[in-house]
C-alpha cells in the first residue's frame, strides 16, 4: 500500500504548528479515515470532531489544502498525494485544540432569531394543507447540516470579524426558511436589517461554493431575503412611520 503524507495542525488555543504524519492509503479512503488511522496508531490525543462519517451531521468541517470541506466526504483520490495534504481547523472560529474549534457562537446566534410561529390550523382535521411546490424551496434550506463551512468562508466574519453585527450565511438560510415557510406568521425583516446585519453581505457567493449540501445560499436565500427587506424598508408607509420615529436609515 502506498503512503500519503499529512500535515495536521496541532496545538491549543490558537498556538500550534503543522506536524507531519505518513499513513498508508487504500482504495476509497477519505481524509477522515486517514485522520482516524493517524489518531489510532500515532497520535492518540489528536483532537477531531466527527459523528456520521457520511456527510449527514456536519461535525467534521476543516480546511483541507486550504479549502473548507467535510473531512468525511473528501476522497483522497481527488487530492494530489504527491505533496503533503494540509489539514487545519476552521480559521474563522476561536481555536480549542488541534482540529477542534469553538463554534458555540453559532448556537448563540440561532437563539436570537425568533422562532417558527405558525398560523392556526385551518384544515378540518385540525392540521394544515400544504402543496409540495410550496414547500420545495424551504425544504432546500432545511437540508442544512450546520457544518458552519459557509460561516468559515464568509469574509464578513473571517476577515472583518463582524460576529456581533452579522449572523452569517447559515443563519440567513435559517431566517429564509422561516420567512418563506408557508405556515409562519412572523415578520423578521426589521431585525434582519438591523440586528442580523443582512446588509453586510455583498453577494460574493463564497458561501454557496463551499456548501456540502449544495444549498444555493446566495441566490435562493439571501437575495430574495434582501429584496424583501428592501421592499419593507422602502415601503412608503414604513418609511413614514420610520420618519416619525426617527429610525429611517440614511441612504
Amino acid at each position, binding site marked *: 500500500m502506498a503512503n500519503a503524507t499529512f500535515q495536521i495542525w496541532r496545538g491549543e488555543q490558537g498556538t500550534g504548528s503543522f506536524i507531519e504524519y505518513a499513513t498508508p492509503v487504500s482504495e*476509497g479512503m477519505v481524509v477522515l479515515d486517514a485522520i482516524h488511522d493517524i489518531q489510532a496508531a500515532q497520535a*492518540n490525543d489528536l483532537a477531531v470532531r466527527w*459523528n456520521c462519517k*457520511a456527510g449527514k451531521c456536519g461535525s467534521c468541517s476543516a480546511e483541507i489544502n486550504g479549502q473548507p470541506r467535510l473531512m468525511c466526504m473528501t476522497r483522497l483520490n481527488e487530492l494530489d498525494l504527491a505533496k503533503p495534504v494540509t489539514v487545519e481547523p476552521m480559521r474563522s472560529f476561536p481555536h480549542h485544540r488541534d482540529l477542534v474549534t469553538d463554534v458555540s457562537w453559532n448556537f448563540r446566534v440561532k*437563539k436570537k432569531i425568533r422562532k417558527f410561529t405558525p398560523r392556526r390550523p385551518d384544515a378540518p382535521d385540525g392540521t394544515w394543507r*400544504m402543496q409540495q411546490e410550496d414547500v420545495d424551496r424551504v425544504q432546500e434550506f432545511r437540508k442544512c447540516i450546520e457544518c458552519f463551512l459557509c460561516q468559515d468562508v464568509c469574509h464578513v466574519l473571517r476577515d472583518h470579524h463582524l460576529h456581533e453585527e452579522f449572523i452569517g450565511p447559515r443563519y440567513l438560510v435559517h431566517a429564509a426558511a422561516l420567512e418563506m415557510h408557508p405556515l*409562519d406568521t412572523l415578520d423578521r425583516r426589521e431585525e434582519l436589517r438591523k440586528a442580523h446585519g443582512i446588509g453586510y453581505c455583498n453577494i460574493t457567493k463564497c458561501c454557496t461554493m463551499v456548501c456540502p449540501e449544495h444549498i444555493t445560499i446566495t441566490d435562493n436565500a439571501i437575495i430574495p431575503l434582501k429584496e424583501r427587506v428592501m421592499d419593507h424598508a422602502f415601503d412608503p408607509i414604513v418609511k413614514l412611520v420610520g420618519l416619525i420615529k426617527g429610525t429611517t436609515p440614511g441612504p
Partner: protein
Amino acid sequence: MTTELETRDHDVLVIGAGGAGLRAAIEAAAAGVSVGLVCKSLLGKAHTVMAEGGVAAALANVDDRDSWKVHFTDTLRGGQYLNNWRMAELHAKEAPDRVRELEAWGALFDRTPDGRILQRNFGGHRYPRLAHVGDRTGLEMIRTLQDHGIHQGIDVHMEVTVVSLFTREGRIAGALAYDRERGRFRLFRAKAIVIATGGVGRAFKITSNSWEYSGDGQSVAFHAGAVLQDMEFVQFHPTGMVWPPSVRGILVTEGVRGEGGVLKNSEGRRFMFDDIPDNYKAQTADNPEEGWRYVLGDKNARRPPELLTRDHVARCIMREVRDGRGSPHGGVYLDIAWIKEKMPKAAEHIRKKLPSMYHQFKQLADIDITTTPMEVGPTTHYMMGGIRVDGDTQMSSLPGLFAAGEAAAGLHGANRLGGNSLSDLLVFGRRAGEFAAQFARAHSASTPDAGEVKEATQEALAPFARPTGENPYAVQHDLQSLMQDLVGIVRRQEEMVRAVEGLQKLKARAANVGVTGNREYNPGWHTALDLKHLLTVSEAIVASALARRESRGGHFRDDFPDKSAAFSSFNFVVKRAPDGAMELGKEPIPPMRDELAKIVEEMK
C-alpha cells in the same frame, strides 16, 4: 492532578440530545421543572440526524385502511411477540399526534397531492406508513426539536460526557460527567434522570453507528443497579455499503427498497422470492409484477419480498454470499436503476426521492445509483434491548431513573421495524419527560455521596497514571473484531463461549490502558473511558445470546436455527449482583389485555 468539581442542580437531567432526549427535555420543561440536557457531541449532531427513511405513524394519509390497530399488530409480528405490548399499544396510538406536533413546530414533510403528510412503504409495515422528507427524515426531526427546544429554557451542556450515576437511599441522586473541551468534571445533582443515550453499535466492527454508540447509558444504568432486558437482540440491517473498505457499514436506507429497489444475486436472480416465511406469505407478493404494482400504490397488490423484516432479509443475503452467489466484495446487488424500465424520468425520480443515497454513492463509491446497482451487505445497526422500563412512565427498576429511545428496551421485542425508532423517540421521549418531571415534583433533592463521587473521578483519571499503558484504540479494535466474529449475525455456542473468555482478557487489558497528552479534548482518554461501557454491554449481549437457545428476530443461532415455544413467554434480563457481577434472569411477559389479544387474532 486536579479532581475539582463544578456542581449543577436540575430537577430533571436528560442525558442525550437525540430525538428521545430532546423530546423528553421539551416535555419536562413544559411541565415547569428545571431541566438540564447533556450530550457528548454538539447539539443537533446525535444519531437521530442520520436517520433516513422516515417516521412510522398510522396517519392513514396514503392508505385509509391503516389504523393504530394495524400498526400495533405489525409491530408485534415484527418483534416476534416478545415486545412489551403496552408500549406497542401506546406507540401505535400516540405516534400520529407526535408527528403532527412536529409539523406544528415547523417540520416540513413531503406532501401528498392533496397537501397532507406523504407516507412511504417500509419493511414489515402493511400500508405506506412512514412520514418522510426525501431520505433525510432524521435531520428534519432533530432540527425541528432542536429549534423548538432552544426556546424552552432548557440548560444545554454540549460536549459533556456522563461517566457514572449515583444513587442515595434507593433512588437516583445524580451523575458525574466531564466536559470534552477542558476535561474538567461536572457533578449533576438531579431529582430525576432520563437516559436517552442511544445504542451500542460501536461494540461491532461493521456498523452504521458513530463513535457515540458505546452503550454508555445502558452501562451506567446497569452499574447503578437498573435492570437491562433483551440484550441478545441486536439488529443487523441488511443493506450497508460494502465497498470501498473505508465506507463498509455505512447505511443504505430501506427507503431504496420502499421506492422499488430490488435485491439480486450474482446470477441476476431476485432471491428474496425464494424464501418467504409462513407468517408473512399472505401479505407478500409472489411475483415481480405484483410487487411493482404495490410500489406504485395499487391497494390490491401485496408488498414485494424485499420489504420483509430486516432480520429475514439480512439472513437471506448472508445465505447468497455463503453459497457463492454474492457480489465481488462479499455482498449482493441492490438495484433501483431498474425502475427506468417501468417509468419515465426514473433518474430524476430517484434523485428526488433518495437524494442523500445518490450523493453518498456518487461521492464515496463512484457509483451512479440511477444507472448502476449498489453492492450491499448486513451492518450492525440498532439495539432492540436496553434498559427495562415501565411501559406507561418509562421509569426503570431504579426509582427516579427513566429511559427512552434506543437506550430503552421493550417496544421492538426481538426485531424492530424500520421507522418505528423515530416514532419511539417521540412517543416515549415525551412520556419519559412528563413522568420524570412528575417524579421530580414529588421528591426532594438528594446529594450523591462525596466518597462515591471522589472514587468515580479517580477511576476516570486512572489512565493518565499509566502513560506507557496499552493503546486504548487497540483494545477497542480487538473488542469490535471479537464481537463481530463471535457474536455477530450468525451465532454458535462454542464461538460465544470463546467470546466470554475473550471479553475477560479484554477487561484485563482495558484496566491497563494508558493515555498520553493532557485532559483537554483528548480522544485517547475518551476512548479509554468508553471501554468500560463497551465491555459491559458486550458482556450482557453474550450472556443473553448464550441463554437464548433458539432463533428469533435479530438473534440467529446456527445451532438452534428454529424458533422455540419454550422461549416465547419471557424476556431475558441482566442485573448487577451485590458483588458487582452480571446476573442473568427471566421476566415473564404478562398476558395481553383481552381487547388487544382480540385485535392480534383478527389481524393474523
